[in-house]
């Protein structure tokens, strides 16, 4: 890791936040663009989530004896019904610990 990489990442992060506030006039984006941008979290986060759950340390698919899948499903169900961020995180991690320490 180099400091330069951290600084570049900082600049990119800052510019995405700054550009619209500083450069845009009111209503530069039409309604449709705003709708599409609202899908960005749904498009980006699963690309981080899925590989961390379904792949093992070597990057190969791991469907059998994978407690992460079961724990993630528990978290999804709790999240779906509770719509509570903390309950979702808590249920996922606790069920993961239950599986790795007691069940497996």
């Amino acid at each position: 890791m180099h400091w330069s990489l951290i600084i570049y990442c900082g600049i990119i992060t800052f510019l995405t936040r700054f550009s619209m506030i500083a450069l845009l006039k009111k209503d530069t984006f039409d309604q449709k663009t705003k709708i599409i941008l609202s899908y960005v979290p749904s498009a980006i986060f699963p690309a981080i989530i899925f590989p961390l759950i379904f792949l093992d340390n070597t990057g190969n698919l791991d469907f059998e004896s994978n407690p992460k899948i079961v724990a993630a499903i528990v978290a999804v169900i709790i999240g779906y019904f509770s719509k509570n961020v903390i309950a979702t995180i808590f249920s996922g991690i606790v069920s993961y610990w239950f599986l790795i320490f007691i069940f497996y």
Partner: protein
Amino acid sequence: MNNKLKTLYKGILDVSPLMIPVVPFGIIFGVIGMDLGIGPYMTFGMSIIVFGGASQIVLLQLFSGGASSIVILSSVGAVNSRHLLYGAVLSEHLSGLKFIWKVIISYVLVDQAFAVSNEYFKKNKKNKNKHYHLLGGGATCWTIWQISTLGGIFLGSIVPEELGLKFAIPITFLALLINDFKKIKNVIVMLVSGLIATFGYHLIPFKAYIIVAALSALFVAVFLTNIRLSKK
């Protein structure tokens, strides 16, 4: 209390409940930074310089996977593209501010601060000091994030690896999506992104699976949006 202080205080108060999940997220980031051998200075430096949880996790994850700088930077850019929306939505309220205010506010414009201040701006359009609300919320997020990162850096040497704290990363991101679980179009977009990233992990070169999966899923989102608009 004058109006500026009052608005600042309201921002701090409004954002506070959202800080509860930020604490474990920050701790996890610190622990993982230490786990990967990045060292305390760089781990903490990331929280100061980048100040964005998702960006920092992606940076760590891709770096430890051996991705090149170009792939890391474009993936961080993709993760951050949601901020374009925040800025676009807020520009209506902030366009009259001085340049230095826009710089400060951009630095602290994280998801949680945006969420509460956007609501406040809609209801208090006439308050000419309303940007103090965003400053209060953003500064609160900043302080909590830095303290919890430090906590994680300190705990990193104590927390045993058997606890599998890395699993907290996908779970934390998953928790950010819960409000979209009931929207079928969002769920389709999520599945497209996740499946492409998982099955493309080895197939897509240069560890570019995050950006390829995200762009493909966004393309599907455009397609789904068009269907809805044409029906109207």
